């Protein structure tokens, strides 16, 4: 059975510096909006103006990115290969890390050739005491840009930017439901692995919950964490793990539930896997009147449109103003928004001044100057020189 987490000694330089900067620590916490101590508040009122227009954080971040609270970062301290093209990255988060709940996912900013790309991965380690490491398990998508980089080309010492942990697909606070069912497929196991490891490490004052895991994978070699979960199931009387190998047994359909887990109807259920499985489960649970006992988590992938300049535009939604409009592919989003009555930031209208930047919520855009398709959630879009490439939403 693989060791889950071998505590790795922290980088001595970073730790001693962090200790030295304990005073400054409180300042930056105040700066990042956390509850300050009175001493910290007074000290920050004195020190912050000295760094103006920057913050003390900007200087600490130069010494070690992990000292930055404003732009949280983590350092990879171990890369462990898992089955078939997947690896677990063990990450020591820096000062800005605010912790997570079991089952949440983590936005990770990865720098590749100077450009930062953001992706989200489920956290596979239990919630930690401050200063401990966390893990994500990444499967390399063939043809992908970020996941193969993380799996194959990430070394110890690599610094990753970390967003705040997100997602409601989590273990409930105490008390836990007495009976739980986890249905997962492929890399859908990752958030559930985080939950099971959390449960496995917990001491229950009363009776432990009864937990059933039904996991689908093409074959045993593709079953992430198989040995570890089998070991847990052997050790913990309240956990049972069933694997379904689709290459030989075919796909799991909800109609199998009656055989695989006869009391599925009464269990609080967590499901994570491909859309087809989740959709079928949602219908099945709803038809049985158990819809409120089913929680699903979907891994959304931004659809990539073909590099075809004749591709149609799409419907644009302006999140904050609640306006929606049809956009043709060749019209700048700035003009689409203005025509729809949205108050748009604007500037030179030629792609020069960067006055018209708006964050993209989802979807893709096309640079009208080059025809290039781009756009990732959170990316700032120059609305005067980008048109819609399919449906999209802007944070405006």
């Amino acid at each position, binding site marked *: 059975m693989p060791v889950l987490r071998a505590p790795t000694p922290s980088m001595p330089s970073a730790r001693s510096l962090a200790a030295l900067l304990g005073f400054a620590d409180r300042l930056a916490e105040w700066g990042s909006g956390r509850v300050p101590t009175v001493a910290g508040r007074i000290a920050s009122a004195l020190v912050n103006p000295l760094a*103006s*227009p*920057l913050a003390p954080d900007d*200087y600490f971040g*130069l010494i070690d990115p992990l000292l930055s609270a404003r732009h949280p970062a983590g350092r990879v301290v171990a890369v462990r290969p898992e089955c078939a093209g997947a690896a677990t990255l063990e990450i020591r988060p820096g000062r800005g890390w605010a912790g997570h709940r079991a089952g949440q996912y983590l936005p990770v900013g990865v720098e590749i050739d*100077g450009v930062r790309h953001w992706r989200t991965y489920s956290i596979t380690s239990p919630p930690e005491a401050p200063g401990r490491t966390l893990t994500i398990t990444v499967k390399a998508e063939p043809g992908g840009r970020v996941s193969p980089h993380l799996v194959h080309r990430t070394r110890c010492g690599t610094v990753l930017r970390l967003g705040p942990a997100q997602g409601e697909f989590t273990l409930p606070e105490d008390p836990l439901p007495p009976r739980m069912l986890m249905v997962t497929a492929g890399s859908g196991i990752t958030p559930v692995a985080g939950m099971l490891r959390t449960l496995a490490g917990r001491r229950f004052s009363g009776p432990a919950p009864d937990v059933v895991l039904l996991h689908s994978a093409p074959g045993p070699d593709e079953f992430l964490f198989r040995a570890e979960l089998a070991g847990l199931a052997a050790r913990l009387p309240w956990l049972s793990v069933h694997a379904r190998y689709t290459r030989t047994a075919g796909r799991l359909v909800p109609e199998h539930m009656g055989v695989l887990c006869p009391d599925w109807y009464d269990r609080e259920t967590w499901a994570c896997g491909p859309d087809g499985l989740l959709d079928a489960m949602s219908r099945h649970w709803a038809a049985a009147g158990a819809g409120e006992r089913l929680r699903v988590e979907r891994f959304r992938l931004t659809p990539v449109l073909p590099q075809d300049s004749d591709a149609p535009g799409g419907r644009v939604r302006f999140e904050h103003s609640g306006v929606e409009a049809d956009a043709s592919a060749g019209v700048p989003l700035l003009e689409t928004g203005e025509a729809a009555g949205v108050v748009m930031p604007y500037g*030179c209208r030629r792609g*020069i001044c960067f*006055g018209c930047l708006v964050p993209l919520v989802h979807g893709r855009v096309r640079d009208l100057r080059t025809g290039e398709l781009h756009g990732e959630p959170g990316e700032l879009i120059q609305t005067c020189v980008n048109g819609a490439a399919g449906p999209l939403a802007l944070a405006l």
Partner: protein
Amino acid sequence: MSTTAVPVTPLESPEDHTELLGEELDRIRAEIVAARGAQDARYIRTVIAAQRGLETGGRAALAVSLFPPAWLAGTAMLTTAKILENMELGHNILHGQWDWMGDPAIHSTTWEWDFLTPADAWKHTHNHLHHTYTNVVGLDRDLGYTILRMSPDQPWHPVHLLQPLYTALLAPVFEWGIALYDLEADALPSGRKSARAFLGDLAGLARKAVRQAAKDYVLFPLLAGPSALPCLVGNVTANGLRNIWAHTVIFCGHFPGDVQTFSYEEEQLEGETRGQWYLRQIQGSANIEGGYLLHILTGNLSHQIEHHVFPDLPSNRYSELAPRVREICARHGITYVSGSLWRQYVSMWGRVLRHSVPDGSREP
């Protein structure tokens, strides 16, 4: 360069030349955009680290500046730090040159600089108005900053007789001049700017000015204890030298004698093609020749022509672009104004003096 669109028919008109120029420059731009990568990212982070190191060192030395060598070293380091901060970092990051990295800490929407005028106000007057209407009389307010007469097409007023004097006086307090200029008080009477917007900008400037002045002229001197006075003098000197340097670089980038000004109507600019726009940017700018250090300290605005042609390409690429742009200009018979700092400085002053008096042919 892989030129694929070489015309087989001879060029008939200046319009053909201009459009070909546009296509060639667009291709260069696309090449650089495709080539941007880890090396460029490392460059800007190195400059940031050097600037913050110099600033920290300068502040530390000025804290013990009763000791004269510490004053000299501290003032030199702080001046260099402020110049790097304004030119290579602030100016270029606020242009969006580094937005492609996706680093929120080095981004045009989040960067604030160690300069009196707030970044937002400056991005409007500089990135938008100046870079769109470069050297167009009546539209580019940077053409003389509303107080100087830099073109025969600008009307002469007796006050312009004093412009050599106030040009010289402006240099050491340049950041205050720019901050007041960015308020666009001159746009109030015409209604181009509302009173409400003006007051909002004024409040923004006041907030920034208080922070800036408090830091350099109150807090750091107080912290220096017995060295308070030399520390204060060092900070004033650093800001003043930075201002004189910024004034010099900016004036040498647009006002040497050979640089053209344009008298277009705004409607004419509406229909301006990409080639015509590039041509106006080239003809309205001037380069300063020098070594690596000069380029760094000017924030690569020594490559003012390349900057105006490609304002959003990373500044560290301008020096590799300059020979190519120059070659294209030579081929199309376009004047490319370039000279040593000394030559451009003298030429710029010639222009200030020449236009301080009314033109013979245009006397009212």
